[in-house]
């Protein structure tokens, strides 16, 4: 019997929502880590019971949580369930130790980036925004952090090492924070090209590595951001999210601060596909699991309001890979809706028909079991939703 598991990160804890393949009735389990911000949770593609969560707090900093039983129980990697420490009294790992690599041997001593006022500012670790488990090994995972950098763990989250070639490739001192901080929020592992990784940073842009994270290059050609000094600069663009259908690697879709963009050559060149969308702003974007030309966005009114146009929550779907968009509103609030949908808060399952899910800052989680034609609120009163991921279970 197939089923789905939604991993919902919120401002006050983690929730795990489960349903069978019909996706009509849902059970909600949580909150896990009550009172903490859960920026992101994601499961391993090769071991669905292996889950990772980024738990964070302005008071107490970063915690990484791991579950080996599909979210029933959790522990900090290196500190097994029920154990405080090793028999020798020492920790087995430091799962929350994210230290920038400035060594001459493996890194480059990039220590400052651009600050809001144009001056240089030290790199300071704040939190993990996104966790991306490896496509082949449940013990390997990547973490995108604020201030922007990419880390990798090869021991199930016990220890972390920065892939410092990203910050050190040359443009790092020109990166600067967006309103939400200078975060590395998108990590995409390409299943067809070994070693190919895409990442995106707000506000620096998108980058690609073809050697498993050792070296990087900016892939922002074609982006245009009219309110930065050089609208077509190599870096400095506020990329909100990137999505790729793993069945068609190399074709990328981007929701940028302004405009929806598309690349057909692994990011080497982008072109705008905003078409008839009602606004030029939004955070989320995702691709249908079986139809690589079908994409979803949630238009948000730019720039200072950041809620749906006219108080009406709508998903827009393009079946043509962009430019031609249709409004999807059946089951969604038709009026008086002033929530937002944040960048990591949309996901698709791989059932037939494709399920689409998103969460709002108002604590609602909406699900569509028919590729977006109709929507149902499967949770209405959670804390503000920061992220949504889905696992398709067999």
């Amino acid at each position: 019997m197939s089923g789905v598991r939604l991993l919902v990160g919120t401002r006050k804890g983690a929730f795990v929502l489960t349903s069978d393949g019909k996706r009509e009735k849902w059970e909600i389990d949580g909150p896990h880590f009550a009172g903490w911000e859960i920026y992101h949770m994601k499961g391993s593609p090769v071991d669905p019971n292996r889950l990772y969560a980024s738990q964070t707090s302005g008071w107490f900093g970063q915690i990484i949580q791991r579950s080996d039983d599909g979210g029933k129980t959790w522990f900090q990697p290196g500190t097994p369930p029920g154990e405080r420490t090793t028999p020798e009294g020492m920790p087995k790992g430091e799962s929350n130790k994210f230290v920038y690599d400035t060594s001459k041997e493996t890194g480059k001593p990039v220590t400052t980036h651009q600050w809001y006022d144009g001056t240089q500012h030290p790199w300071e670790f704040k939190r993990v925004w996104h966790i991306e488990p490896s496509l082949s090994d449940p013990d390997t995972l990547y973490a995108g952090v604020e201030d922007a950098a990419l880390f990798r763990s090869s021991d199930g989250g016990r220890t972390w090492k920065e892939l410092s070639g990203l910050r050190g490739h040359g443009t790092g001192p020109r990166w600067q924070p967006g309103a939400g901080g200078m975060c590395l929020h998108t990590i995409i592992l390409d299943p067809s090209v070994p070693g190919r990784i895409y990442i995106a940073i707000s506000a620096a842009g998108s980058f690609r590595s073809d050697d498993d994270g050792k070296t990087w290059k900016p892939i922002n050609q074609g982006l245009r951001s009219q309110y930065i000094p050089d609208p077509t600069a190599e870096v400095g663009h506020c990329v909100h999210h990137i999505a790729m259908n793993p069945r068609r690697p190399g074709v990328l879709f981007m929701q940028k601060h302004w405009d929806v963009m598309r690349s057909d050559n692994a990011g080497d060149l982008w072109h705008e596909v905003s078409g008839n969308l009602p606004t030029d702003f939004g955070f989320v974007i995702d691709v249908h699991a079986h139809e690589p030309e079908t994409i979803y966005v949630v238009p948000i009114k730019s720039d200072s309001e950041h809620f749906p146009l006219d108080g009406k929550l709508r998903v827009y779907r393009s079946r043509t890979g962009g430019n031609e968009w249709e409004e999807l509103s059946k089951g969604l609030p038709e009026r008086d809706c002033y929530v937002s949908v944040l960048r990591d808060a949309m996901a698709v399952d791989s059932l037939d028909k494709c399920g689409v899910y998103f969460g709002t800052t108002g604590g609602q989680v909406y699900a569509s079991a028919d590729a977006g034609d109709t929507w149902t609120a499967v949770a209405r009163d959670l804390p503000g939703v920061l992220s949504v991921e889905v696992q398709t279970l067999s």
Partner: protein
Amino acid sequence: MIRVILPAHLRTLARVRDEVELEIQGPVTQRSVLDALEGSYPMLRGTIRDHVTQQRRPFLRFFACEEDLSHELPDTPLPEAVASGAEPLLIIGAIAGG
């Protein structure tokens, strides 16, 4: 025996319900107490002081004997009442918000 009271979220992380007790050899200072605390409860590493700089996280404070000791140097001896176990060292999460 040194007594330490943690904020609620850190008690949850450390899987303790009440105050924790620590055995400390040598001078009782912020540093020696935190070293002992993190040794017994490794999941607290990085949550009270920075992994690298060892500086107190900005929104945390150290109180004892009705005094704010947050700005004392890490190797300054804590009050005798803390060293004797008569009074606990309180690790406080700053109250923020409206």
